[in-house]
């Protein structure tokens, strides 16, 4: 935000012996104090006895979104808008007790409606005779620190889900309701579209957020292992079972169990899972005593489960048990306008993680990304940006910093893929799925030769859609 002249400030302020303003009075424009206040990265404002703001530095403008023009002369709580203003006003306590507050944690709401974590310190301001004439508050924006902490702990919230596409906005608007309810959730969407991110955001917004979020990738384990992994086993249940193991259901007690790629489980396992969901009880492998766990199940699939139900590859009763709340995530190619936002989001995230200062991508890189079909969806985009962070040593990501196969593919393709071509790639994907990946059958259904199908699959970056994980 550009600094505006401090029009409302008085032009006749005095300065105290240590260069601080004699408070209650505003700093004169262009005074050394004003320059010092504006040069520091922490937000600083001063108030008089009636809690009206007398000075508001440049960092305070940047953090709160309010200009000094807006702020000076207003009540501090109307501008600062912290969650502690109404119940535990730090400045009030400092002014009445004379004791400073140091590094008090709070949250503010900026002018744009962004909630920011901050740390606050306060002190009284005195005149030359030692009379208290006001207070000063300094505050530091902890957003970046919190972002980093969230990345490390994977404590994702709604704010981590980026998208302005109508479908994404609709999903996001109902996320709080979904989080609050105790119902099972089914998240469907292509590989890399952010199913786990949504699941974690639901958990982190739910009343279960203090309890564990346990993710299980059902496709990664064969049936028997999956059963012991989920329900646990007792000592001696099989060779090597040297002690009891609780299993993921019990580990998730009170929290959320995220069953990713549920479509890849056998109908036998599905029957076991259904029993647990119906009764809330399960018996560890080799055990006789049933155990009970209070778990909210969020399941995810990259294939529409209803299709699998029709093909008898997924139990209908389990499908209806899981499908209480259904979230369908769109593929990235269906929400191309979100690509610039996502690029910005990943650059911000990686700048924090890797302590870099990359400011953006060049226009030709953005064009290339907008034209790419993204079979790997948002995850693929994130990987591309992460790759560019390794190769780019400056502040701007250019074409030469992108993965070679992406460049090669873009060269083989026209500069932009037409809408017609996008529909064709979707159709090929759907037909391949219907034919269980059989390219001969798919080519026949599409009324094209096998080589044409192969060429088109290569062009659109389609592997076997069943393997897209």
């Amino acid at each position, binding site marked *: 935000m550009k600094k505006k002249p401090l029009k409302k400030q008085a032009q006749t302020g005095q300065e105290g012996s240590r260069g601080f303003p004699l408070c209650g009075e505003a700093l004169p424009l262009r005074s050394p104090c004003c320059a010092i206040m504006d040069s520091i990265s922490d937000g600083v404002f001063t108030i008089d006895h009636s809690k009206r703001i007398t000075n508001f530095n440049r960092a305070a403008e940047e953090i709160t979104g309010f200009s000094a023009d807006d702020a000076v002369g207003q009540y501090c709580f*109307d501008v600062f808008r912290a969650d502690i203003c*109404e119940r535990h006003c730090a400045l009030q306590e400092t002014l009445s007790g004379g004791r400073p507050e140091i590094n008090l944690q709070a949250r503010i709401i900026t002018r744009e*409606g962004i909630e920011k974590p901050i740390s606050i310190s306060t002190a009284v301001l005195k005149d030359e005779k030692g009379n208290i004439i006001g207070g000063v508050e300094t505050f530091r924006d902890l957003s970046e620190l919190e972002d980093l902490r969230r990345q490390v702990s994977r404590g994702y919230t709604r704010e981590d889900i980026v998208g302005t596409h109508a479908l994404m906005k609709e999903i996001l*608007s109902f996320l709080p309701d979904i989080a609050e309810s105790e119902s099972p959730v089914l998240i469907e969407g292509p590989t890399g579209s952010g199913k786990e991110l949504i699941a974690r955001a639901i958990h982190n917004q739910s009343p279960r957020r203090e309890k564990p979020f346990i993710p299980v990738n059902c496709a990664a384990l064969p049936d028997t292992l999956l059963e012991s992994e989920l329900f646990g086993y007792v000592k001696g249940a099989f060779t090597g079972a040297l002690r009891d193991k609780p299993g993921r259901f019990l580990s998730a007690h009170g929290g959320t169990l995220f069953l990713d790629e549920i479509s890849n489980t056998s109908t036998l396992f599905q029957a076991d899972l259904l029993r647990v969901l119906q009764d809330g009880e399960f018996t560890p492998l080799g055990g006789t005593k049933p155990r009970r766990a209070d778990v909210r199940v969020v399941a995810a699939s990259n294939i529409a489960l209803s299709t699998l139900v029709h093909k008898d590859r997924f139990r209908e009763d389990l499908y209806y048990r899981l499908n209480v709340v259904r979230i369908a995530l769109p593929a990235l190619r269906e929400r191309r306008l979100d690509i610039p936002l996502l690029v910005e989001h990943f650059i911000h995230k990686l700048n924090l993680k890797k302590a870099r200062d990359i400011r953006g991508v060049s226009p030709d890189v953005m064009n290339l990304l907008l034209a790419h079909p993204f079979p790997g969806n948002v995850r693929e985009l994130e990987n591309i940006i992460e790759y560019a962070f390794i190769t780019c040593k400056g502040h701007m990501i250019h074409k030469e910093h992108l993965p070679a196969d992406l460049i090669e593919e873009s060269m083989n393709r026209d500069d932009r893929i037409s809408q017609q071509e996008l529909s064709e790639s979707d159709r090929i994907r759907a037909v391949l799925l219907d034919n269980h990946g059989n390219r001969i059958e798919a080519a026949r259904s599409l009324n094209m030769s096998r080589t044409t199908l192969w060429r088109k699959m290569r062009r659109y970056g389609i592997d076997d859609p069943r393997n897209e994980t």
Partner: protein
Amino acid sequence: MDTDKDRKVKDTGRKKLAVVLFGERVSPYFGSSSKVLLVESEGDTIHEKRVRDLEGETPLELAKRLAALEIDLLVCGGIQRPLREWLESRGICVIENQKGQAEDLARDALNASRSKHNA
């Protein structure tokens, strides 16, 4: 997403408005206070004006309680963007970034809404 009932209310010019309170002023931080000033009006007439404690412990709970009251307008100071969008998706008009006396703001918001309705 107007229901028949909503349409009926809007067509007759009846409005239900809430201002989240900090004393007699609008609360600067949505969720800090669960006390709200509720005003129901029709045309120029204010039918009812009362203060209620909605007892929401979190900003989301407060938003849900306000939505359950079927208000048409919410006047507030700072409000978290996701909550503002959530309320708007339920047909509630959110007038944010306000400061000052709650009753004055309520009156101004109702006047503005009435002018818009008549236009």
